[in-house]
């Protein structure tokens, strides 16, 4: 059945223009609601405390001051927090890319006894809510002797079930012919994985990179339970302690907002660089 084709070369009717403008207006209004808080964040971080209290809505400081940033970088442990977050995030991201693709490939392509049970176990594990793990992970980290160390912060995060799931799904969608060819040419399993299949997996790898970066940069509860010394505090834990404040200091909003702003910049950069990847991916990308 052929549908009648309308030649829409003529000007759209007034009604359609009105409909479209309403659509745009609504979208722009909502976009403003979504963006405005971040603009306020940036603007307030350059205000004085009194200015921030007196005029919370304005985007232009009465006097632009970098006092908050100075205090943050020169008078607090903020640089240490940033360093720790960076170290953990980079190592965890690299680790996850490697281990998740390894396991995902094995589950997708390699045949071995227990594969199905393993996959079922993976799904079961994915469904355990992370709050149940707060206390016991602390106990295990303690028991293993890696409490209050970089190892304790990094090792438990090195692989995640969701990432393995994504990689497995992706590998299953690749045609087998290339691998078969490589195998027939005599390549070993790891060689096939590393040199043939992995380069083809770039879209999925980028997804894993984005998710891992985001997940470990923004992680909080794991760092609460795995560290106690001030040298190992990460950005999330540090800014959280700033937010709860100390007795004799005032509310210090410009300082806190400056910290929040700087904390957001790296993820924002990763986001904007890989934007198309995220918004076009139809894999279940989930914010943890």
């Amino acid at each position, binding site marked *: 059945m052929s549908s009648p084709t309308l030649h829409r070369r003529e000007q759209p009717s007034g009604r359609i223009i009105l409909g479209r403008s309403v659509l745009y207006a609504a979208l722009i209004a909502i976009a403003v609601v979504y963006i405005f808080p971040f603009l306020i964040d940036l603007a307030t971080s350059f205000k004085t405390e009194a200015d921030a209290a007196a005029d919370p809505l304005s985007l232009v400081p009465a006097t632009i001051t970098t006092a908050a940033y100075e205090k943050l970088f020169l008078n607090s442990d903020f640089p240490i927090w940033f360093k720790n977050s960076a170290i953990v995030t980079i190592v965890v991201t690299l680790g996850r890319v490697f281990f998740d693709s390894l396991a995902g490939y094995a589950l997708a392509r390699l045949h071995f006894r227990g594969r199905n049970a393993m996959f079922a176990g993976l799904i079961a594990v994915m469904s355990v809510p992370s709050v149940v793990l707060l206390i016991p992970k602390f106990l295990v980290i303690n028991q293993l002797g890696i409490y209050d160390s970089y190892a304790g912060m990094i090792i438990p995060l090195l692989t995640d079930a969701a990432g393995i799931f994504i990689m497995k799904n992706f590998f299953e969608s690749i045609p087998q012919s290339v691998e078969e060819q490589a195998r027939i040419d005599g390549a070993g399993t790891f060689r096939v994985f590393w040199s043939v299949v992995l380069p083809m997996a770039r879209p999925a790898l980028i997804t894993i990179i984005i998710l891992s970066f985001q997940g470990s940069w923004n992680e*909080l509860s794991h760092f609460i339970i795995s560290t106690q010394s001030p040298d190992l505090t990460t950005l999330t834990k540090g800014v959280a302690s700033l937010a709860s404040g100390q007795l004799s200091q005032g509310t210090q909003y410009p300082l806190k907002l400056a910290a929040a702003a700087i904390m957001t910049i790296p993820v924002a950069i990763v986001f904007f660089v890989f934007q198309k990847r995220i918004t076009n991916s139809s894999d279940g990308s989930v*914010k943890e």
Partner: protein
Amino acid sequence: MTTIPRQPRLSERRRASGIRRGEAASGWLFTAPMLVLLGLFLVIPVLMALWVSFSDWSGRGSPFAGSVGFVGFDNYSALLGGGGLAEQDFGTALKNNAWYVLLVVPLQTAVALFLAVMVNRQILKGRGFFRTAFYFPSVTSSVAITVLWLFLFNSTGAVNKLLSFIGVTGPNWFNDPSGIFHFGVATGPAFLENSTALGIPLWDWLGGPSVAMSAFVLLAIFTTSGTFMLLFIAALQNLNGEVFEAAEMDGASGWQRFWRVTLPQLRPTLFTVLTLGLIGCWQVFDQIYTGTKGAPGKTTLTPAYLSYQAAFQDQQWGQGAAIAFLLFVIIVLFTLLQRWVLSEKKVSKRRLRAYRLPETEGAVVAPTGSLHKEDRS
């Protein structure tokens, strides 16, 4: 002519097994890191916590030491019926979180769906910009957003300033413990005040989230609607356009098209979004830890934060573990409930009749949404 399935020639089979010989070993090797890490840091902790929740371990030494006693369900019964502070705190935490879930999940799903439909229109220019704008809050850390929220929802902050432009005096958001469904009434009718569940009067249960909790509800919608919007957009783009044309031809209006044709086809994505939303909302912790730590008046206390507080601050490890497992059970129950509610029930005969075309035997167009592949459940 019947075809006999072709047996692989012996030489071929042998060669296949020759190539695949190392596979089993590689398979185990490749998955070894995953097994070790997930086993150590996911499976074993859960078992350990289970033991701690049945024990009286006080926090020093190993939980498996000989001095640690097995107390059966004592920790659980203290939380569910002990009559003391433990039960009241647990009841309060459950109440707060239940209202949070009740408000956040439908609202964030609706907002996400609404945004997805709006942004998905073909005629829209600047789609990328809008998608980015709506998704950006999801990328940020909950700590950063909570700090921002503490500033915006201050009693003299941006939100109250905005409200004053329309003549409304905003409440002292994060410091106001009154329930929003109480509408300012301080004490309720006697029968509601006196009957309690889990140590909390029914009047409080019906009061809804506190004003402080409502600020967190808005925070949740702000930060997660973007992620789910993307899921909906992906699903919308996979929809088959023919069904829409057919519906349009049948005279369905825009709203009817959406409700009767689009939505049923989005069922699996809807299921995913609702499940993820439920699981996420029942575990809210980061925002409470950063922002209010349970204040004001314990109205932002949640089971996850209570579990942390009981264990790490009050040294009640058994109780903290018990709270965590009770929460686990609740999450599983809610997920199953939601799955049952959303499952594809058989279309009732009455409905079916509406779609029956006249003068054709049995030709029925029923919206069963079978154009998708069954989602992981």
